[in-house]
C-alpha cells in the first residue's frame, strides 16, 4: 500500500494538494485539499454593494468575467432592476462572457491539459521545417528545459506527426486565447478583470466600429475552434481512448444555465438562456432545476456542525479548527442532498437530454464521428470534449448577438441602492455552476456568499459520508505507475479546478488528515 502526494498540483488555478492511497494498483482512498485562504467574503462585509462586482472578480484571475457576471446579476436582483437592463447591456454582457469562455477553454485544453498527453521533449529529434517547432528544438538544445521538465514520464502515446502538430497548436493557441481576451476588451476595457460589466448594464454604448472589430476577431477564433481545437480534442481522445472510461465520477450533473436571451424576466430560473438550467444523471433524463434545493454541508469541513445544511442565501462561516474528522476548508455543496458535478459536461449533457437544438446535433455528430455512446461523456475525455463543443456553440451564437446590438442606444440604466434587500446571481461559469448571494442592510453588504464551481467539484465528503465529485472520479482508478501517477493528474485537470475560488481557510490541522494516515 502506498500514498501518492501531489503538492502542488500544477496547471490549474490556485493551490491544490491531492493525496491518494493506492493498494494493489488501485486508488482506495483519496483526499483533495485547497491550500490558500484569503477571506474575500469577510472583506466584502460592510462595503458599498456595488464594489462587490469589482472585488469578486479578484476571486480568480482566470475566470474573473464569470464572477463579474454572477455578482452583477446578484446586484441587479438586489437592486430590483434585473428585468430592466437594456438589451444592449444584456447582449454586451453575453459577448464579454462568451469571449472569456472561448479564451478560457482554449487555455485549458492547450496550456493546462495538453502537456499531460503531448511530448515536447521528443522535438529534440525533430527534422521538419516548422519554424515554431524548430525554435523549441533549439530551446531544447540550449539544455534549459523549464517549464516542460520535470514532468511525469512514461505515457506519452501520440504518434510523431500528431505530437508535432499538437505542439505547433500549443504555440498557436497562446495567440488564440490572447485574441479572445483582446476581443473581450473591445467592450470590457481590459483583461483580466474586465471593467465593462457593471450593475445596471455595461459602461459603454455600442458603436458600429466596436461591433465590427469584435465580429472579425470572433471569426478568426471560430476558424481555430472548428479547424484546430475540436479536431485536436478528438485526436487526443482517439489515442487515449481508455480515458473515455477513466474518471467517470459521481454521474449526477447540475447546470445553472447561462447567456441571457430574455431581459424582461426577473426570475433567473425562468429566464430564457442559451444553455438552460437543469440536472441529469446517467439515466439521461432531464430534471428541472430549483435553486432552493442547494445546501452546503460541513461534516468533514472545519466549520461548526450547527451551520450544516443551510441554503447559501443564509450561509454562515463559523470556523471550528479543532473539529474531529474534518479534513477540508471547502464546504460540501449538495443539491437535493446529493453529490452533483458541475462544468461544461453538465451544461452540455443537461441541454442534450433536454433537446436543446443548439446542442443535440453537435453532440450527436461528435459522438457518431468517434463511434461513442452518450455515456462515454462521463469521463476525462468526455469533459474535455464537452468543453470544446461548448466553445463552438458559444462562438457560433455570438455572431448573432453582435448583430442584435443597436449602435448608439443606451446599454445602462440608473438605479437606487435599497437600504435592505436580498439578491441571487447564478451563471454558468467556464468551470461550471457559479452562484453569488447578497444580503444588504443599511445600504451596505451585510452578508455575501459565493459557491464556486470548484467548491462543488472538489468538495470533501458530505454529512452522509459521500465523497465529492472529483474524489469519486479518482476513487477506484487503476494506477499503472505510482511514481508517475498520470491517471490522477489527468482526472484532476479534466475538472479544470480553480482553487483560488474555492478555498476558505487552512489551519495546521489541515495537515492532519484524520483517518487518512496511511503511508
Amino acid at each position, binding site marked *: 500500500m502506498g500514498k501518492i502526494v501531489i503538492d502542488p498540483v500544477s496547471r490549474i488555478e490556485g493551490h491544490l494538494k491531492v493525496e491518494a492511497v493506492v493498494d494493489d494498483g488501485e486508488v482506495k482512498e483519496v483526499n483533495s485539499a485547497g491550500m490558500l485562504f484569503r477571506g474575500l467574503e469577510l472583506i466584502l462585509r460592510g462595503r458599498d454593494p456595488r464594489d462587490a462586482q469589482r472585488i469578486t472578480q479578484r476571486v480568480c484571475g482566470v475566470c474573473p468575467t464569470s464572477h463579474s457576471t454572477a455578482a452583477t446579476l446578484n446586484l441587479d436582483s438586489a437592486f430590483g432592476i434585473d428585468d430592466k437592463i437594456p438589451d444592449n447591456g444584456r447582449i454586451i454582457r453575453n459577448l464579454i462572457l462568451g469571449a472569456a469562455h472561448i479564451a478560457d477553454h482554449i487555455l485549458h485544453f492547450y496550456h493546462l491539459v495538453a*502537456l499531460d498527453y503531448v511530448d515536447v521533449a521528443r522535438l529534440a529529434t525533430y527534422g521538419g521545417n516548422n519554424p515554431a517547432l524548430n525554435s523549441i528544438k533549439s530551446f531544447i538544445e540550449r539544455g534549459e528545459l523549464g517549464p516542460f521538465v520535470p514532468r511525469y514520464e512514461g505515457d506519452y502515446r501520440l504518434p510523431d506527426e500528431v505530437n508535432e502538430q499538437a505542439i505547433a497548436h500549443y504555440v498557436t493557441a497562446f495567440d488564440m486565447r490572447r485574441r479572445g481576451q483582446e476581443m473581450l476588451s473591445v467592450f470590457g*476595457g481590459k483583461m483580466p478583470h474586465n471593467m465593462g460589466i457593471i450593475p445596471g448594464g455595461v459602461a459603454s454604448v455600442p458603436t458600429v466600429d466596436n461591433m465590427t472589430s469584435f465580429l472579425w476577431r470572433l471569426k478568426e477564433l471560430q476558424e481555430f475552434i472548428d479547424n484546430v481545437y475540436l479536431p485536436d480534442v478528438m485526436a487526443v481522445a482517439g489515442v487515449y481512448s481508455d480515458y473515455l472510461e477513466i474518471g467517470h465520477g459521481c454521474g449526477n450533473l447540475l447546470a445553472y444555465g447561462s447567456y441571457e436571451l430574455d431581459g424582461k424576466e426577473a426570475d433567473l430560473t425562468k429566464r430564457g438562456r442559451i444553455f438552460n438550467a437543469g440536472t441529469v444523471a446517467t439515466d439521461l433524463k432531464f430534471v428541472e432545476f430549483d435553486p432552493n434545493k442547494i445546501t452546503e454541508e460541513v461534516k468533514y469541513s472545519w466549520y461548526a456542525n450547527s451551520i450544516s445544511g443551510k441554503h447559501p442565501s443564509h450561509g454562515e462561516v463559523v470556523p471550528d479548527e479543532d473539529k474531529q474528522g474534518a479534513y477540508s476548508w471547502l464546504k460540501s455543496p449538495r443539491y437535493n442532498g446529493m453529490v452533483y458535478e458541475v462544468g461544461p459536461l453538465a451544461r452540455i449533457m443537461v441541454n442534450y437530454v433536454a433537446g436543446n437544438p443548439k446542442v443535440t446535433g453537435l453532440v450527436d455528430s461528435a459522438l457518431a464521428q468517434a463511434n461513442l455512446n452518450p455515456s462515454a461523456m462521463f469521463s476525462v475525455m468526455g469533459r474535455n470534449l464537452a468543453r470544446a463543443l461548448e466553445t463552438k456553440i458559444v462562438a457560433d451564437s455570438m455572431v448573432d448577438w453582435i448583430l442584435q446590438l443597436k449602435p448608439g442606444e443606451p446599454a445602462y440604466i440608473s438605479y437606487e441602492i435599497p437600504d435592505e434587500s436580498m439578491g441571487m446571481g447564478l451563471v454558468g461559469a467556464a468551470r461550471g455552476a457559479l452562484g453569488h448571494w447578497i444580503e444588504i442592510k443599511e445600504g451596505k453588504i451585510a452578508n455575501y456568499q459565493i459557491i464556486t464551481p470548484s467548491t462543488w467539484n472538489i468538495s470533501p465528503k458530505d454529512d452522509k459520508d459521500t465523497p465529492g465529485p472529483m474524489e469519486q472520479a479518482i476513487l477506484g482508478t487503476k494506477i499503472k505507475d505510482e511514481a508517475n501517477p498520470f491517471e490522477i493528474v489527468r482526472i484532476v485537470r479534466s475538472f479544470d479546478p480553480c482553487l483560488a475560488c474555492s478555498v476558505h481557510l487552512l489551519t495546521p490541522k489541515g495537515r492532519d488528515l484524520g483517518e487518512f494516515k496511511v503511508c
Partner: protein
Amino acid sequence: MFKLPKIKAPWYNRKVSDMGDSGAKEYPVIWLQTASCTGCSVSLLNVINPSIKNLLVDEVVPGHHINLRFHPTVMAGAGEPAIEFMVDTSQKKKGGYILVVEGAVPTAKNGIHGVVGEKDGKPMTMLSWVESLATDAMAVIALGSCAAFGGIPAAYPNPTACRSVGEVLQAKGIKTPLVNIPGCPPHPDWFVGTVASIMLTGLPSPEDIDELGRPKAFFGQTIHENCQRRAYYDENKFAKKFGDPGCNYELGCRGPITHADCPVRLWNDKTNWCVGCGATCIGCTEPGFFDIAPLYEKLSASALPEEV
C-alpha cells in the same frame, strides 16, 4: 482604513555587473504564486511583442534568455519533482536567479493560511518560501498590487494579515534588490520591460524608481495627465451616469491619484483600456486601492493632489 506602506529602497544602486555574474545570459526565473488570483500570470500571457512563446523558449533581448524553472500555472511538472527542481535552482544558481512573486504574503499564525508543497516532509508556507528564495535571488520582482502593496487579500479587515513582499523582506532584513510592478493585473509590458531592462542595463538605479518602488518608466505619470477624457475635465463637463460623454470623475474615477501609463500604452494589443470602455479608473496600481473609498463614489477634494 487605509495605510500607505513606506518602502525605503537603498539597494537600487546595485547593478547586475556588480554582482559577480556580469556574463549572465540565462536568467533562471522562479515564479511563486502566493495569496493571488493568477490574474498577473494570465495578464503576462497577453503579452504581444515579444510573444509569450518568445519569452518561454526564445529570448527576451538578443542573447538573453529566461529559464522558467517554476511556475504553477504553466509548468509541466507537479508535486515533489517540481518543488525539488525549484529548490535545486535556488541552490545551484545562488545570486543568479530572479524571483517573481505574484500575490500578497499571508503572515498571520506564521503564514499558515497559504501553503505550497513540502520540504523534508514538512508543509512549507508561502511566507517561508518567499523568505528563503528571496535571500539568494539576484533580484525580486513583486508583480501585481498584491505582491507590491498587499492588494485585495490585505484589504480591510485583512483576515490573514497579508503583507507586501517588500514588507516581508524588510521584516527579515533581506537586502535583495526589489522592484514593485503593481496593477490589478499589471500590464504585461511593465513586466517584460523591467526584465529586459535588467538584462540590458542592470538593476534599476534610484532615479529610475519612485518612492513606492515602481519603475518611473511606467508609473511616472498619472492616468489623469494622459486621459482621453481630460479635455472634458478641463471644461467642467462631467458624465452623470455611465455611457454619458464627459469626464468620469463624478462616477468615482481615480485617474487623478493613480500612477500608470494605461491611457497611452492601452491594453490587450492596444485594443482598449478602462476609461476607454466607458468605465472609471479604479486606481489599481496604488496601495490600498479598495480601501481609499467606495469605488463608485466621487473622490473627495482633499484626496486630490494639488496640481490637478
